[in-house]
């Protein structure tokens, strides 16, 4: 026998640039960076809030400026992409069966978007909108 299988070395770091679906996947994963940073900012705000008015005002002043706005726009787009991808896969992860028939995924996804609108509107109203 003269077998000599050839094993190609796959790229360990740049593989996700090779196909659009991998790029979309990496975008989805990177949403966690923005969501994480945003959550940390909120936690910082919460902590400063607990330290008293002066500390909190300092925090608010530090968060002002165009950089914050740009970050907010990008982070919100990533967060929306996270929402989109998360809802898309929900019917796959948790298929619902009614009377022996699988509920169409589109209905589950639509129900999630309806919930999203309700929650977002409630938060907006809560903020005095």
């Amino acid at each position: 026998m003269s077998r000599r299988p050839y094993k190609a070395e796959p790229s360990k770091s740049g593989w996700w640039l090779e196909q659009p679906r991998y790029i979309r996947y990496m975008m989805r994963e990177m949403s966690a960076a923005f969501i994480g940073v945003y959550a940390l900012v909120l936690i910082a705000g919460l902590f400063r809030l607990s330290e008293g008015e002066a500390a909190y005002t300092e925090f608010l002043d530090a968060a002002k400026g165009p950089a914050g706005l740009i970050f907010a726009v990008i982070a919100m787009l990533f967060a929306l992409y996270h929402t989109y991808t998360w809802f898309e896969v929900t019917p796959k992860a948790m298929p619902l069966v009614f009377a022996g028939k699988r509920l169409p995924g589109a209905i589950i996804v639509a129900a999630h978007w309806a919930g999203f609108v309700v929650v977002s509107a409630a938060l907006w109203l809560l903020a005095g909108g």
Partner: protein
Amino acid sequence: MLNDKSNVFNTDLFEALELGAMIDVAGAMACAALQRTESRGSHQRLDYPDRDDAEFLRHSLAHYSATDLPAIDYSDVTITRSQPAERVYGGAQE
């Protein structure tokens, strides 16, 4: 003619080996069919349109030896559940 001399996953070689086996099987089928002077299942002959259980309710066995064509021999059939019956279609069933 074999073009591929490789020792690894040589499909040219195995297709040649398969061809040899197919010729053997084809020869066995043709010889057995010629000697089976009846019609049975998918073996249909215009010159012998009827089934002949007395003569041919038997397996055909082909034996290759030095000669080109196989010798045909027969062995008994053990019938378990399904008895041979007339093959009829459509209105003929009623």
